């Protein structure tokens, strides 16, 4: 079984975001880069499926500047992935469409593909789009926000929808599944794992190798801004009964949200 895991590198969740003076993006200096949290669930699930089948190959793929995303690929290999592919963007911007094109072309180049696992959303661009676009480009089904996978013959993928309701899809053949929190508990890389990862194969591709150019971008981001400052908090005094009464009055008369 050949499983691909798409892995994006994103700023750590604690990062304080600062905007470049020309508003064209964020200041990247000093940012600590990590594996997108949802992608860790995807890596873990791939390893579990491979090991339950008693064999196979888990390949982690990332589109981004090679100089930094290689680290995250090595981390995933230290968790247990077999090999990696980095599609180097250098300093070029890629939108969700271009990232999906690069990922799907890289997967096609490898020949066989039984399953593609991704995160449900990258916490930087908040797009939740790349998995579906990859599936469209590979002409295979997709299921997003997946919280449970059973891979025995056909694949059963459970996803959460509104109000805690869930729907379960049955899929025949290769597909793209986008992992949600709750799917599993990602393992940590062990020390021997880290040592082994250094020797695992890492293929390097350029955007040109996968047929992606800036002329294909569908969207660009501009005019970055920090959110407007909130007015200072109004603290309510008195005993609980008085505080409750005053809050309800303020919500109705001042904030007008009720």
């Amino acid at each position: 079984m050949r499983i691909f895991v798409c892995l994006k590198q994103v700023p750590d969740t604690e990062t304080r975001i600062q905007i470049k003076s020309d508003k064209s993006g964020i200041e990247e200096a000093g940012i600590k880069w990590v594996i997108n949290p949802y992608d860790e669930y995807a890596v873990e699930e791939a390893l579990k499926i491979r090991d339950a089948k008693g064999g196979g190959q888990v390949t982690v793929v990332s589109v981004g500047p090679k100089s930094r995303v290689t680290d995250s690929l090595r981390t995933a290999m230290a968790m247990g992935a077999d090999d990696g592919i980095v599609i180097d963007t250098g300093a070029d911007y890629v939108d969700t469409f271009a990232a999906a094109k690069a990922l799907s072309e890289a997967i096609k180049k490898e020949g066989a593909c039984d399953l593609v696992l991704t995160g449900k959303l990258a916490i930087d661009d908040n797009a939740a789009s790349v998995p579906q676009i990859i599936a469209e480009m590979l002409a295979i089904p997709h299921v997003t926000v997946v919280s449970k996978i059973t891979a025995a013959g056909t694949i059963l993928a459970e996803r959460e929808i509104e109000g805690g309701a869930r729907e379960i899809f049955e899929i025949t053949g290769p597909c793209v599944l986008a992992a949600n929190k709750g799917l599993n508990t990602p393992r940590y890389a062990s020390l021997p794992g880290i040592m082994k990862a250094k020797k695992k194969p890492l293929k390097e591709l350029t955007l040109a190798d996968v047929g992606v150019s800036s002329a294909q971008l569908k969207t660009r981001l501009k005019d970055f801004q920090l959110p407007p400052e909130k007015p200072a908090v109004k603290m309510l005094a008195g005993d609980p009964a008085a505080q409750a009464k005053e809050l309800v009055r303020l919500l109705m008369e001042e904030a007008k949200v009720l």
Partner: protein
Amino acid sequence: MAKVFVFLESNGTELKKGSMELLTAAQASGREVIAGIMGPGAKSLAPKAAHYGAKTTFVCDSPDLGHYNPESFTEAVCSMVKESGADVVLASSSVMARDLFPRVAARLDSGVASDCTILKLTADNITVRKPLYAGKCTAEVEFVNSPVKFVLMRPNQLPVGAADAAASASIKDFAAPKTSGKIQTKDMVKGSSSKADLTEANIIVSGGRGMGSADNFKLLDDLANSLGATVGASRAVADAGWVPHSMQVGQTGKTVAPSLYLAFGISGAIQHLAGMSGSKVIVAVNKDGDAPIFQKANYGIVGDLFEIAPKLTEEFKKALHK
């Protein structure tokens, strides 16, 4: 005249609020509004679309479409968008639309801006902004080389106009697409809650570790019932198993943007704030006056939530159910 296609969702009998917001914006733009509705009962909703400005409503109301299927919905919505001739497509950032539209957009060789919070649509232009880095900043999404511009708007960001009960729309039927059978709905599991989903809720009452136990969430259920609110939680609480993961708000939970967010016993970690700082009005109740949540709150109460929550339930009942 320029056109705009608006994808509508309902709870079966009523259009969702987010859908009405989009119809209102579409109508105000001066463009011709074409609406699309999927699933059994779609036809009965067409008049409602007209009341909010749709000139034409496309319906695909086959019983086969009772459950969402990415394959058949993609196929049907692509036909609708092509038939409409619109170069702008609006949909709510719902669980279904977020799954569906990136694929529809890709099939039409176009781009998608998801989870937008600002939309300015005119007869000849469109400007959208979206939060990035979990709400720590925002940016404008500019469409380039995108024949159709797909925009998914977060609910509760735009006003709903007045309904014009006299308005009517022409209806066009679309046949249910044939499918490959490669992906099929196997089963549906009903949710525990009949309330609005967190991502669409207008009011959210959330509890953190300060709630102390799963049982104590009963306090928040009561409060939520008095307000017609949906209950959420911090990660600490979801990880402790007091509530299901589906209730978690934050960077690795749901991003919410209600009109009112009430946080009880939540400290206000950056990853929690990331999921709810887009709320219009935030109320924090915490026994620790230095809790970071107060820096994001509009109204704060320093005190014991076990004393405050029941009193608030009483007050809301008095004020709202007179």
